C-alpha cells in the first residue's frame, strides 16, 4: 500500500510539475491541480494506519485509524479549491485584457517606468 501511494504521489507530482512549466495558462492550472492533489495524497499517506473507523463509542481493545489526517486533508482540499479559483480568476483577467492567445505575455524589453500616482484612472465599468 505504501509503495502504491508513493508511486501515485510521485506520478502526480511529476506530471503536475511538467504541466506547470507549460506556457499555456490552462495547462498550467491543470499542473497546479495535480500538484495540490499530490500534496493531499501525501497527507493521507502520512497517517496511514490499519484500524476501525474512529467513531465514538469505541469497542474496547480495538485499534482505530488516524482521524486527524482526514481533517487535515479536508482543509487542504478546500484551500486548494480556493487557490485554483483565484488562479482561474487571474487567467480570466489576462484573457479579457487581450493578451496574446492565453499565454503569459512576453517580458517587456525596456524596463518598466515607475508609475506616478497622480490621477487614478477611474474605471467603474469593470471589476
Amino acid at each position, binding site marked *: 500500500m505504501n509503495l502504491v501511494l508513493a508511486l501515485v504521489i510521485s506520478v502526480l507530482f511529476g506530471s503536475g510539475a511538467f504541466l*506547470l512549466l507549460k506556457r499555456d495558462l490552462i495547462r498550467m492550472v491543470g499542473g497546479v491541480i495535480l500538484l495540490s492533489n499530490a500534496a493531499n495524497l501525501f497527507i493521507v499517506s502520512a497517517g496511514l494506519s490499519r484500524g476501525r473507523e474512529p467513531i465514538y463509542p469505541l469497542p474496547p481493545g480495538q485499534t482505530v485509524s488516524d482521524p486527524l489526517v482526514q481533517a*487535515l486533508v479536508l482543509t487542504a482540499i478546500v484551500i486548494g479549491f480556493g*487557490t485554483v479559483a483565484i488562479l482561474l480568476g*487571474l487567467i480570466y483577467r489576462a484573457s479579457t485584457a487581450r493578451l496574446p492567445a492565453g499565454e503569459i505575455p512576453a*517580458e517587456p524589453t525596456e524596463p*518598466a517606468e515607475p508609475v506616478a500616482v*497622480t490621477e*487614478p484612472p*477611474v474605471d467603474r465599468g469593470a*471589476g
Partner: protein
Amino acid sequence: MLLLPLAITWFGALALTPFDGRRRAIGLAAVGILAAAYLALGWLAFQVLTSGPIEMIAGNWGPGIGIRIRADALGMAFALISVGVLLAALAYEVLGGVHERTLPESLLFMATGLFGVFMTADIFNFYVFFEIAMISSFALASYGKETRHLRAALTFTVVNLLGSVVFLAGIVGLYHVTGTLDMEVVSQRVSGVPAGSVLLIAVLIFVAFGLKLGIFPFHSWVPVVYRDTWPAIAAVLSAALANIGSYGLLRFGAGLMPRELDLTAQGLILIGSMSILYGAFQAVGARSASGVIAWSAIGQVGYILVAIGIGGPVGFAAAILYTIINALNKLVLFLAVGLRGWLVGAAFALAAFSVAGVPPSAGFFGKVALFRAGVTADSTALLVLIVLGGALSLLYLFLLYQRDYWSHPAEVPPSPLPARILVLALAAGVVLLGLWPEPLLALSAKAAAVLPGGG
C-alpha cells in the same frame, strides 16, 4: 482578548466585501478597522512584553487536544511590523485614490492571515493562516490591471503555489515523524527522531520559506514581481508578506528543529552571503527604480539568513532587528518610487541612507547588530561582506537617486500632498528609530529569547 485583533480584521473584511472599495468612505472605513486592530495588537503586545506569553486553547478543548493560540514576544514583534506595513500601504492607497474595488478587503484579509500566522502554536494552523495571507496576496498582486501587473501576478501566484505545496509536504512530514501538530510537543519529540528524516523535512521547509523570502537560489520571481507590481503592492509583498519567510525560518528552524539548524548553519551563511553579493551587483546594473529596489531586496534578505545561520542570542536578535528595519526601508522606498513631487526625494534619500546603514538612521543599528553577530562568529570574511554589501547599496541607491530625482526635475505632475506627507512621516520614523533605538533593540532581544538557544 487574544483573538481580538484577528476578529476585528476578519469581521471588518467580511463587512466591507459587498461595497465598492474605490469609494473614499469605504477606504477610510478600512483604514479605521485596520487601525483599531493595530491598537488591539499594540495593547496585546504590551501585555505580552511586560508579563510574559499569553495562551489559550481554541473551542475550550483540553490541553493536548485543541489548537493552541499563543502570543509571545517573537510573534508580537513580527505582527507589529507586518501589520504596521499593511496599515501604511492601505492609508497610502486611500490617500492617493484606490483603483480597484477589492483592495481594502484584500488587505484586511491579509492582516487576518498575518495575525494568525504570528499567533498560532500549531503547525497545521500555521499553514492555514499562511494560505489565507497568500490567497489575499494573489488577489492583490494583479492590482492596477495593466498587462505588466497581470504578468507579475501570474508569476507570483504560480511560484508561491509551488512553495505552498512544498511547505505542506514539510508540515505533514513533521506530523508523520512526531505524531502531533502542536509546536511545543513537536519540539520535544523531534530530538528523538533519526536525524536523516528530520533533515529532509527541514530542507523542504527551508525551500518553502526561502522561496517566500526570495533568497538567492529561489529568487527568480522576485525581480519581475517587485518591479512590475503596483508600488504599494510591492511594498506589501516585500515588507509584510516576506516577513512570514524570516518568521518561519526562525520558528521552524530555531524553534522546532535546532539540531538541524546547527547542522546546516554553514550552508545558510553561504547561501545568505551569495544572496547579498548577487543582489547587490544586479541592483547596480538594474535600470528602473523599482528594479533596483527589487534586486536590493534579494541582497537584504541575505543578511537575515546570515544572522540566522550565526545563531545564538546575538544572531537571532540581529535577524529579528534586521527584518524589522528592512521592512521599514522597503516600505518607504517602494512607496516613494510611486510618487512624484516635492518631499518625495527627501523621503527616498532617508530610506536609502537607512538601507546603506549610515547613522543616524535605523539601518545603522541593523548593521551594528549584524556586525556584532559577525564578531561572535569570529569570521573576518563576514565582517568584510557586511561592509562591502553596505557600500554597494549606497552606490546603487545613489545612482538611482541621481537618475530619478536630479535629471528629470518636475516633468510629471506631483502626486497628492497627503500621500507625500505620509511617506515623509514614515521616513522620519526610520530616522527617529535610529536616534532612539532602545525600544527596538529590547524588542528584538526579547523576541530572540523566546527561541531555544536565543535566550
